[in-house]
């Protein structure tokens, strides 16, 4: 059993326990929209498709649970290689340790399912699917005039493989109902 396996087990256990402990307090639904720059990193090179990031979430106290859908806005090219990401589906948990702070820090954990299309001369078109543990960090600040409206900045490692890393950086608007 690898260290990574034990780490995942620990994280899953914590996540399964958290809702039961906090579900009764001050729940709010929110939605978020963000342009997002996806980075597909390999040892040799990186491609950067541009995405639109939609999120629907559920917040109570320091916990946020959200479903994320990202869809392609603009493919990226590396010489003759075309890379597009038609969709990314994620389920993420945000932990906000200090809710009273002006600029709130988020720890992000979850899982993602990433669909990558690619095309190269002599190889043709192909699709690849990656799913796995996601983690990241984010910041959130409310507009003083409209407290329900917040500005968010997230960096999330969507997929962390042996030689492939896929991460996203998004700058978005978050609205609480």
């Amino acid at each position: 059993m690898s260290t990574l396996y034990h780490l995942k087990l620990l994280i899953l256990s914590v996540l399964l326990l958290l809702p039961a402990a906090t579900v009764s307090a001050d729940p709010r639904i929110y939605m978020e929209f963000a342009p997002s720059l996806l980075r597909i990193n390999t040892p040799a090179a990186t491609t950067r498709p541009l995405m639109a990031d939609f999120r629907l979430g559920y917040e109570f106290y320091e916990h946020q649970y959200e479903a994320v859908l990202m869809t392609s806005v603009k493919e990226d090219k590396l010489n003759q290689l075309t890379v597009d990401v038609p969709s990314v589906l994620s389920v993420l948990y945000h932990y906000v340790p200090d809710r009273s702070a002006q600029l709130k820090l988020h720890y992000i954990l979850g899982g993602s399912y990433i669909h990558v299309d690619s095309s190269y001369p002599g190889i043709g078109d192909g699709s690849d699917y990656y799913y796995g543990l996601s983690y990241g960090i984010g910041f959130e600040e409310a507009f003083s005039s409209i407290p329900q409206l917040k500005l968010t900045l997230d960096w999330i490692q969507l997929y962390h493989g042996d030689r492939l890393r896929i991460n996203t950086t998004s700058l978005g608007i978050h609205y609480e109902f």
Partner: protein
Amino acid sequence: MLKALFICLGVFLFSCSDKENEDRLVDLHTVANQDVIAIGFPAEMETTVSINSFVQIEILGLKSNGVDEAVITSDVEWSLSSGALSSIDRSGILTTADNAESITVIARFGYLTESIDIWVSAAVFDQVVALHSDTLIIDMCQSQVLAPVGRYEDDEGGEEIRTVDSTNLALLTWDIFDQEDDELSKRAYIAKVNNQLMLHSLSAGEVNVRATHKETDVVSADLAQTIGSALASIKLCSADSTDLSSCDASSGFSVEQDEVLSLISVGNYLLTDGSDAYQNITRNSQWGLDSDLGDESATVFSTDRQQLEFTSNTDDSTADISVACGLIDQSIEDEDISEGVNLEIPVSCDLNDNCLIDTADITVNPLTVLSFDVTANGVNLTHTETTLFDSRPEEITLNVKANYSNVTTVDVTDEDIYTIIDPVDGLDVIEEKEGTSGVFTVLNAGIAKIEINLLGKSFLAVIEVP
């Protein structure tokens, strides 16, 4: 509901062993990064190498335009067939074992894989038997890459004839002799750069090349080589010339003091079909300089020896530059040949056939003055603009600095560069102080005008004296 959500999340977390799917996308990025669509070993790659030697294996990538090829220098995974005693490192350097064996070298670049069979031979290098695998055609003042062929012998008396491996190539010294008298030749020399052998020729004729192995002292037989005489003409051109067929030096060259003048020599070779081929033959030409500037001027080869650079730090002078290809009248030393013939006397071709020459004048012009920095009693002045003094000084002391075209600034205050412009009416305001330069005695109130003139550049200082 929430439980279901987190069970789904758990499924994600525990099913993230998705790494076997990574190869395709990673490989695509690898090949795309270098714009490569196919790979292959060079056609001239040796497939027999000696035991206990090092060989740099290279793989070529075909670019996506389907035409260009380039050596792939990174992201190649090298391996050898299983059971091989030899080894290959990450940069493609094959270290052969101390026993003969047959191996397969495998190069993997992204999703592209190519392999080549190599025989690691126990045969030992004996001597060079040919200068090149094909007939070597070289004309005067040209250069050619050499790939010498050697004889290798094994313990059982067998022999292999193949291109000399890099290990033994590094241990060979080369001498060239004129065939007619067996004297060391000044017609050509062999230079080794980055383990690549180049034959450079200076003049036409028949020569014999001998290769000596430093460790075994075995000397090759005479390897006869003809240096052709198809050079029809030679001419001097500016290194900036884009059309070698039309450039010339008929109107001479001019250069400013301290500026670099870059020259090339261009050879016109007659091809077998009667057409002309113009080539830059600067490296193998023999250059001479006749200058009235003494040590103040010099010519040096550029680092790649594709041009000759002339500079002079004395103005108003001339130099004659000459360039020849062939057997020149002047004596040249061995080091002149290996480092480039660049004499401090003119070269000439009066005594020898098959020697072609061109000459040109170089005029060295003085520097030009681009601007002046002028102060009067410490106050900055601007050309033609009136500067008002607060009080009447007894003297006006100018300080003048000239900014030259070679990006230097020189204090020229003491030069004879001042002319007082008398007022149209009224009394004289200033007069030049006797025995000084740039110092003026104030006589009366009014506007004083002093023109400063140096090398055709002028500055008008206008000062209002209260």
